[in-house]
């Protein structure tokens, strides 16, 4: 409240400059994001045909949505598998990156090197070429992605699992988990950095006081580290959710991409919007639960 008042003091002067400074970005935003956004909504409610020199739209109501949900054999499967993957990867990524961040926050030789190591995937694992090479999921030999190649050549996961006497559903679950480990660790780079930053913002006096009182490390974690990280955890959570939803390598995004390349615009827009609504709804639900139980609002 206080800040708001203060803000108005200096900034009443600035409001007209304000618009000027935001202008370049705002124009870019309107042209390349907001207009296409509304176009995409209109596409999803129309039949789009390509005519020479452009496209033609004919309003057909919810027909596209009906088609993708009830007539398309793959779509609902792919969406539900994407949502399941999203729901189980989120806690794993959060936990993994929190643990790694806590470890990387200790003092030891080569700490900077390790931090750089974990951040490296963020830098190199971008771009269509790399993801094509590393994460191709086709069984075509020439396209075997590196993650599969590595797991088949270095660690023969299947055999190990079979040797341990695990079979059936559990075995396939473990196998997929291990082969996903690259995807998981490669998804943790930014999260680790955010958690590290959160850890460093916890005042060391808290730990000193608790040590004087004789708290164990375990108690220190649950009563100081974990609560103090809650805000960062929400931010990391939101970040991870966005990252998982928009992941280029997921099957749903690949489907959208292939459809667009084969010039199916109307149903693809409907698919994209339906997926966006479902995943956005789940995200909103998770954030609502957080604010309901923690009594805090997610503010950005």
């Amino acid at each position, binding site marked *: 409240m206080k800040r708001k008042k203060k803000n108005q*003091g200096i900034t009443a002067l600035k409001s007209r400059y304000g618009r000027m*400074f935001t202008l370049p970005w705002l124009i870019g935003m309107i*042209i390349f994001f907001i207009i296409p956004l509304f176009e995409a909504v209109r596409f999803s409610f129309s039949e789009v045909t390509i005519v020479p020199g452009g496209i033609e739209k004919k309003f057909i109501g919810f027909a596209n949505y009906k088609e993708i949900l009830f007539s398309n054999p793959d779509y609902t499967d792919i969406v539900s598998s994407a949502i399941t993957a999203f729901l189980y990867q989120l806690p794993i990524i959060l936990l993994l990156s929190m643990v790694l961040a806590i470890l990387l926050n200790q003092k030891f030789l080569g700490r900077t090197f*390790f931090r750089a190591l974990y951040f490296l995937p963020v*830098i190199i694992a971008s771009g269509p070429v*790399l993801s094509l090479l590393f994460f191709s999921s086709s069984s075509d030999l020439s396209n075997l992605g*590196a993650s599969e190649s590595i797991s088949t050549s270095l660690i023969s996961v299947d055999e190990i699992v079979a040797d341990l006497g695990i079979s059936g559903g559990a075995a396939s679950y473990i196998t997929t988990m291990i082969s996903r480990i690259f995807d998981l660790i490669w998804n943790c780079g930014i999260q680790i950095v955010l958690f590290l930053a*959160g850890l460093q913002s916890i005042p060391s006096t808290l730990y000193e006081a608790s040590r004087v009182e004789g708290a164990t490390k375990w108690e220190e974690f649950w009563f100081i580290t974990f609560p103090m990280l809650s805000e960062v955890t929400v931010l990391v959570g939101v970040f991870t959710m966005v990252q998982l939803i928009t992941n280029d390598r997921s099957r749903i995004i690949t489907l959208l991409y292939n459809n667009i390349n084969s010039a199916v615009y109307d149903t693809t827009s409907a698919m994209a919007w339906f997926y966006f609504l479902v995943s956005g709804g789940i995200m909103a639900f998770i954030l609502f639960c957080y604010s309901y139980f923690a009594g805090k609002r997610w503010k950005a």
Partner: protein
Amino acid sequence: MNIIQKLQSSNSPRRLASRKYTRSKFGDIMMFLLLALGGLFSMLPLIYAVCTSFKPLDELLIFPPTFFVKRPTIGNYKVLPDLMASLKVPISRYIFNSLMVSVVSTVIYIVVAAMAAYVIAKATFPGRKTIFWIIQFALMFNAYTLAVPQYLINSKLHLIDTYWIYILPHMASTLGVFLMKQYIDGYIPDALLEAAKIDGASHYRIFWQIVMPIVRPAWLTLTLFSFRDTWSAVPNGTVFSEEIKTLPQIVNQITAGGLARSGSAMAVTVIMMIPPILVYLISQSNVLEAMSSSGIKE
């Protein structure tokens, strides 16, 4: 003297108790091993790419594929000039295009995002809240969702098949504004701006001489992200002339050569990774700092 000794001795059990829970040598080693293992996992694909780029053809054909190279050869790299020679335009042109496009669009992106973020963080004007909501909403969109309408707009603005197609759409990116805004909120007190104002600094001067130096970690981080994205971007169906194609498009052409070319494709990929890693090494120390303030603010 006696009292002090007594105090110390009464304290000591407690001291011991707390010491019991601090890390042991064994714990240290375990922690180090765990980190090394995770680090190795995150490095594996990189090592694999480097190894594969040195594999001779017969090793590339082995199934299941081997991880390490047995008889390393630089043949895959040696072939590259020949592969390049078959291109219509000399390779230097592609390198120039890639560098030009990445640098120009990164610079424009940073300046535009910083200006917008500065105002959204510090000024009050109608629609400020709305703009920030749009930013958060836009963060959730995958590029493909809007690909077709964006293509139509690009063609209406006659951006197709020009350098602008690489640069202008990048302007609408929201991550930059989001990150910068959080950083400015956290690090630039209003009092500082007021002081500059009273001393008679113009808005441009405040922006360039006060705001930008303070938020340096934020824009160095963004430079890294932006460079990474533009460097590896492949514009789908929007660039046709060879003269304005960039390096990733050549990589695609080489990869399209199938299994026999996969060694060379890896070689090109390894070469392509070098510039973003260099940019990272330059901006490295600032990245952690900038990411930190994006989350923690009151």
